[in-house]
């Protein structure tokens, strides 16, 4: 009885994971610029992989395997935002063009190429020579 329920729940989790993974790949293929693609790939992809790993943890039903699957998911959850941030920063500074219908680029003109600093909110007090 319980095994049948676990099999069905694991199957549903696998289907949901495959769906989100497909959505992320579709977003990567269809969205108009890099930053939107990054939005699709990082979030939906992590969710899809996490659902599949959760299905594996349920299917085996052993503590050791569940911890292993949880560690993989935790690792993905920690590294995906870091990788996306590093890549987005590099892409912006490398001058990747935004979508031509982008309304707002708040960093434009506030970034000093020579010192790697920006003067937005929270950038610290201005240099003494400015006063």
């Amino acid at each position, binding site marked *: 009885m319980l095994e049948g329920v676990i099999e069905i729940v694991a199957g549903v989790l696998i289907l949901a994971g495959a769906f989100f993974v497909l959505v992320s790949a579709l977003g*990567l293929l269809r969205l108009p610029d890099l930053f939107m693609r990054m939005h699709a790939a990082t979030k939906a992809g992590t969710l899809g992989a996490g659902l599949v790993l959760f299905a594996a943890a349920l299917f085996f039903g052993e503590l050791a395997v569940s911890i292993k699957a949880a560690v993989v998911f935790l690792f993905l959850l920690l590294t995906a935002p870091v990788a996306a941030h590093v890549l987005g920063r590099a892409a912006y500074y490398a001058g990747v063009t935004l979508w031509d219908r982008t309304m707002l680029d708040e960093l434009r003109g506030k970034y000093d190429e020579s010192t790697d600093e920006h003067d937005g909110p929270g950038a610290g007090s201005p240099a003494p020579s400015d006063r």
Partner: protein
Amino acid sequence: MTLFDGPVSFLQVSAYVGFGGVTIAICAAFVRVVVGPSMPDRVLALDLIGLLSVSLIGLYAIASGESLFLDAAIALALISFLGTVAFSRFIEWRGEEPDA
């Protein structure tokens, strides 16, 4: 007994559907690697392919009943992350896109 040679069940069908979905997703991400258009696009697509491979390994672990494959998933996630960070540092160091 693995899911491959076992009797037809809901879990078996959904595992096969999952294999198909993840494979199609990897193909779509590979199209993005080929067409670009810029270097960060390709790096992002490769990062997603690493993530998709992790889910493929998870699916294969379920289908084959062999939980040791999850160790490979840990290693693959680590290497994929390091590769993405290294590529990003390279892009930032190189500066302006030559062929954006």
